[in-house]
């Protein structure tokens, strides 16, 4: 494909083993159908044969793609990492993780839609990209260096470049390791830092001096100015969230009054949803949401909270997983399922200083954080392999605690507050809540908005939370399709929740997304064509799950605890899931998807309608093509709980 609007037309193909760098046309992977980001990565992974290798095998590909909107002014500066995710448990699965910062746009301006990384370098290297000049360079001097210093070192030798890097956690193959850009933009969930580490790839440096070609600039400008005129875009409208750390009121006030230096955010985005904070002696950095993970456990110590964030970012550890781990280890030690010694800790402040102000203060927090996070980063702690794998080592009582907090595939509970979210979790390969807040911020609380989109809603109105199964398959399918699009266009989760900045019917997120994509690419995407692409991407992911990971209907579930009690901490369902209604819901979900109801395998008819005959053929050769589909949805007769 010649260089075109939206897409650059070129993917970098990096073979670390043989130090060979080539370029592959993006058109080889049908970008019009798979858009970019997760969609493009998924298609590439499929074309690579969905390799059945371990995450740390040299043939395990690390895929980093931007989308056609990346580089445009708006909440589009995102890239998606895909590959075999070491964090998934008990088995490694093909998953995804996105990030913002500056790197994604810089990659687009350098002329690339994505990077495919295969093989393993024989010594630590970094990938240097300066427009057409791409080479692997020695990174031995950076091995062991933290993420902030690595970036600053490389930015001094590559002026105005943006750097994507791993920290010691990734080098030492922690399954909780991240890939970081700037101070707080990370591909967090999935453990992809360790995939980079396994390949001896310390960092990717990119500097691009090109541009994003926009097919219909007047249309694009009109869409942007409409958002602005509505007071919803390019107006700093969203500055009210990230500048308040998501933890206790005392820390929130202290951070905002005494330590907030600037509003902050990703390149090219008007929202600037983050805050940039500085506590002398601890460090500077941005924070938006989960960076506040330790703030829940410090009892009003801002210093403890902030050190938790800065240290984990520098070492390159997944903050969201740390949040779940804290709950687990406090319970495990508190209930005697594990000892501090088992976990390599000499103190756990919230246990050892339970009665004290700030749980012993900064000194105690510093000791704990240093032991915990260094243990994870250098691989000496059981917890560096994730809570699920650690619990196996610790014994049955720890496994029980794990199952109470971890609904599926090794990811800590996150917003499973309605049945639709539960079904989404059950049919994904990771915690999907990086990009599906549509449930909790739109459809759950606002039934009238849900009705506009033709999906059920209103199951999470204030004081009226209830488990609804009827037509929930439609809600989940809608959100999954939208999620696939968000992660492929790409558009930031925060700026694409259907009711946050787009007030239907005056502005419908589907119309906005299809119009922006059309304006940038010059290809006319109707809402239907766009939504079909979302379904296509989801279906191809399903085909990979089935082909590579032997996914079947039985695997589409949550930990047994979610069927027995109200689980998940402060983000819970109204009641435990009802097994009969759950299985009936799955019947209907496979029906809506056009998948085989008994196996959950995709069937030929819908795959062909989605333009993926080749996928149907491959599944058939593997004996994993669904036999029937299009079962008429059976609306459950039982009343909603």
């Amino acid at each position: 494909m010649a260089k075109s609007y939206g897409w650059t037309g070129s993917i970098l193909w990096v073979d670390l083993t043989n130090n060979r760098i080539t370029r592959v046309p993006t058109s080889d992977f049908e970008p019009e159908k798979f858009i970019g980001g997760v969609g493009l990565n998924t298609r590439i992974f499929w074309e690579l044969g969905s390799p059945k290798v371990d995450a740390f095998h040299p043939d395990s590909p690390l895929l980093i793609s931007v989308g056609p909107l990346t580089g445009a002014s708006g909440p589009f500066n995102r890239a998606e990492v895909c590959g075999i995710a070491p964090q998934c448990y008990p088995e490694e699965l093909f998953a995804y993780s996105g990030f913002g910062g500056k790197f994604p746009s810089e990659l687009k301006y350098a002329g690339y839609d994505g990077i495919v990384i295969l093989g393993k370098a024989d010594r630590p290297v970094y990938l240097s990209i300066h427009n057409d000049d791409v080479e692997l360079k020695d990174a031995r001097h950076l091995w062991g260096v933290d993420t902030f210093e690595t970036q600053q070192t490389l930015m001094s030798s590559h002026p105005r470049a943006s750097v994507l890097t791993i920290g010691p956690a990734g080098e030492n193959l922690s399954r909780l390791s991240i890939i970081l850009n700037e101070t707080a933009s990370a591909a967090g969930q999935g453990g992809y830092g360790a995939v980079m580490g396994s390949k001896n790839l310390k960092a990717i440096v990119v500097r691009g001096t090109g541009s994003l070609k926009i097919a219909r600039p007047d249309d694009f400008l009109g869409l942007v100015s409409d958002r602005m005129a509505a007071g919803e875009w390019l107006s700093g409208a969203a500055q009210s969230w990230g500048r308040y750390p998501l933890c206790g009121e005392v820390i929130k006030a202290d951070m905002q009054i005494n330590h907030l230096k600037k509003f902050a955010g990703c390149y090219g985005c008007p929202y600037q949803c983050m805050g940039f904070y500085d506590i002398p002696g601890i460090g500077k950095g941005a924070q938006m949401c989960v960076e506040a993970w330790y703030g829940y456990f410090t009892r009003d110590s801002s210093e403890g909270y902030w050190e938790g964030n800065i240290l984990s970012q520098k070492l390159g550890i997944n903050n969201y997983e740390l949040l779940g781990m804290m709950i687990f280890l406090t319970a495990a030690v508190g209930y005697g399922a594990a000892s501090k010694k088992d976990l390599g800790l000499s103190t756990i402040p919230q246990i050892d200083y339970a009665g004290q102000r700030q749980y012993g203060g900064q000194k105690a927090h510093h000791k704990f954080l240093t032991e915990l996070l260094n243990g994870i980063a250098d691989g000496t702690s059981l917890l560096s392999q994730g809570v699920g794998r650690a619990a196996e080592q610790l014994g049955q009582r720890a496994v029980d605690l794990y199952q109470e907090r971890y609904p599926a595939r090794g990811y800590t509970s996150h917003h499973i507050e309605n049945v639709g979210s539960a079904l989404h979790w059950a049919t994904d390969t990771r915690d999907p809540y990086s990009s599906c807040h549509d449930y909790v911020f739109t459809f759950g609380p606002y039934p009238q908005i849900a009705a506009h989109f033709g999906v059920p809603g209103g199951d999470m109105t204030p004081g009226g939370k209830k488990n609804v199964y009827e037509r929930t398959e439609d809600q989940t399918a809608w959100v999954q399709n939208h999620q696939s699009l968000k992660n492929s266009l790409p558009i930031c989760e925060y700026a694409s929740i259907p009711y946050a900045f787009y007030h239907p019917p005056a502005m419908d997120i589907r119309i906005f997304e299809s119009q922006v994509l059309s304006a940038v690419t010059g290809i006319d995407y109707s809402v239907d064509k766009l939504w079909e692409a979302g379904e296509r991407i989801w279906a191809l992911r399903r085909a990979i799950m089935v082909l590579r990971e032997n996914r079947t209907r039985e695997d589409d579930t949550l930990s047994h605890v979610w069927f027995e009690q109200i689980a998940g901490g402060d983000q819970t369902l109204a009641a435990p899931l009802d097994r009969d209604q759950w299985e009936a819901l799955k019947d209907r979900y496979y029906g809506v998807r056009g998948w085989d109801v008994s196996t959950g395998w995709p069937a030929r008819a819908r795959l062909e309608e989605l333009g993926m005959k080749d996928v149907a053929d491959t599944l058939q050769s593997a004996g994993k093509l669904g036999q029937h589909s299009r079962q008429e949805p059976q609306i459950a007769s039982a009343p909603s709980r």
Partner: protein
Amino acid sequence: MPEDRKESKGIDRRQFLTGAGAVAITGAIAGLAACSPSTTKTEEEVPISGVITHDPTICSGCGVCGLMCSLYHEGEQGPALARSGVVRDPFTYEFTFNVCQQCRSPSCYFACPLKDTALCIDSVTGARYVNEENCTGCEKCIEACPFDPPRVVLHPEKKVVFSCNLCTGRDKGPICVEYCSMKALRYVTKDERKENGEVVRLDREYSLG
């Protein structure tokens, strides 16, 4: 060598296979017709100009300014095609904003061999700007610019120079100012500039909190 110059010279033509997109917003430069060059001015005769000011204490470095600038003037988005832009340091969150300072005594103007034909001074806003149609790309204005990096830049594809023209002719004024979500940018008109002297800064009314 200043960074922007390195950038523009090091660029690869492949980056700019622009097709029709490059000049799609032709209306953007229609305002330039308002310029009616007169005879070459002496230093005393050069009128004062408006200018865009930047408050680094509240800028978050998002770079929307440069992207909107390149969209409006070039029909593409990329900081290398912007007449203004923020240099981002994500570890200190300190940002510099590089835009033509519309000097009281414009060295670029006096250096231009085709002054009032290529490098012009707008009679309404006072903007020192480049009429791309007449520019030969000799780069004398770039050499003359007292700032580092120079605020006049060679377009890597067109081989003519470009610089901020204060979006002269645009009803809503400079587009970067309009779309700055932090309100860190401000357009100071030539009349305001006369009253307040050369250096104009935002006060703290838009600051944090």
